[in-house]
């Protein structure tokens, strides 16, 4: 706004799935984001494990802490290696979950959650992920690519969580091919609708294009995004919690 500086515009929504409404488990997805002057976006989405007792808390803690940690590091230091920073953020977030579990007297597994973390600045876009969420970015030719995707597990309902013992080997940290003007973070509930799973999980352009167009509109509201995620059309295809965070640069 003003001075010809471009900046990120962000819209995010986490919506409880109809299956969770039926079982009264509550929404176990969470998302968080912040903007750091002059033009850096930090964003995260997290999906708590259905069988974890405090899944919703785990997801919320992971999303918020990871964003706050990156923001803090960026504000404290002039030069930070992005790979190191995001790796540290994942480790620090896990430690935070461990501390919470210790303080509350239970296993870290009770807070099991996936985490996808993004840092976008004029220097580039970096992504760190543990679990089965997706981070999709656009390319100058109008195509979309998924970043830091990792191996898909054999079974749809099994993935590694940030709280898992093997989280380190499951954690992917990658730089997106530059330049990027649109970023979408989503949890796996939307994967069936947004990715062509028979084509290696390639982002489905007719899914993202209208959403990114909508996100760029000056008057776009998160409530409209929520309405879409809660719509009948989405609910018939998935009864999982769904999170979508859209960031566009202008």
């Amino acid at each position, binding site marked *: 706004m003003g001075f010809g500086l471009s900046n990120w*515009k*962000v819209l995010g929504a986490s919506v409880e*799935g109809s*299956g*969770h409404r039926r*079982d009264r488990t509550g929404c176990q997805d969470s998302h968080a*984001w*912040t*903007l750091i002057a002059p033009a850096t976006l930090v964003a995260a989405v997290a*999906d708590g*494990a*259905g*069988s*974890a007792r405090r899944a919703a808390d785990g997801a919320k803690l992971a999303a918020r802490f990871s964003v706050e940690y990156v923001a803090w590091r960026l504000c404290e230091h002039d030069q930070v290696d992005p790979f190191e920073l995001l790796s540290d953020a994942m480790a620090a977030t896990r430690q935070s979950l461990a501390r919470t579990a210790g303080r509350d007297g239970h296993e870290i597994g009770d807070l*099991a959650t996936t985490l996808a973390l993004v840092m976008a600045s004029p220097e580039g876009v970096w992504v760190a992920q543990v679990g*089965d969420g997706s981070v999709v970015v656009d390319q100058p030719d109008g195509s979309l690519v998924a970043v830091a995707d990792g191996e898909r597990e*054999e*079974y*749809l*309902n*099994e*993935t590694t*969580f940030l709280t*898992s013992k093997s989280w380190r080997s499951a954690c992917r940290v990658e730089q997106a091919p530059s330049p990027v003007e649109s970023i979408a973070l989503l949890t*796996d*509930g939307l994967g*069936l*609708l*947004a*990715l*062509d*799973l*028979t*084509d290696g999980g390639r982002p*489905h352009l*007719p*899914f993202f294009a*209208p*959403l990114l167009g*909508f996100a760029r509109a000056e*008057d776009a*509201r998160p409530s*409209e*995004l929520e*309405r*879409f995620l809660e*719509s*009948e*059309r*989405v609910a*018939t*295809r*998935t*009864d*999982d*919690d769904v999170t979508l965070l859209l960031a566009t640069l202008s």
Partner: protein
Amino acid sequence: MVAIPRQDALDEYRREEGFSLADEVEFASNPEPRCACVLLLDTSSSMGGRPIAALNEGLRAFQADIGTDTLASRRVEVAIVAFGQGGAQTVQGFLTAGEFVSPTLAAGGSTPMGEAINRALDMVENRKRDYRANGVAYYRPWVFLITDGEPTDAWDDAATRVAEAEESNGVAFFAVGVEGANMDILKQISVREPMKLDGLKFTELFVWLSQSQRRVSASRVGEQAALPPPSGWASV
């Protein structure tokens, strides 16, 4: 969080003009993820009379319960292998729960459980191969064995296969013993602790199975399936 200013009037306008993300956004056309379940049912002569009638009633209850869940109806796939007269019989190959019509089984003959278990494990492996060949995402398949006796055929090989399949996380194998079942042998076949059916509560058992399948086929259940407690049908 950074607050972005909004205009209620514009939002109202967009609604009135009928702009709807739900209409504009096109979904990827992915096949439904599948959850395969093989029911391995003892139809030997000792199941004759009240037990087989209760089992058939249970199958009807399973169809009815899972049929109320539109997502599970598309995702859960059921196959039935009965073992009794004439060896292991594939009563029905994999059908989605929505297409499944509960059969009426008759009792008679011995208990070729070893053959039946091998058949079920083969069906599961073949189904996974089909899924992979067609780009279908899937959940860990189930084999659900119900018996009121003990194997009258060789079963060592089957037990080894079950152990290997569980070890490699290839299948979730459950065993339920009805009154008269040899639980000691079941313990040697099934890695998971076999459960004992309380009387002839097949209906409660099958509703529980439907509920469990519905959970698995819905959202993620993490590294272990969080099944509802079997207290409604299992005897302690």
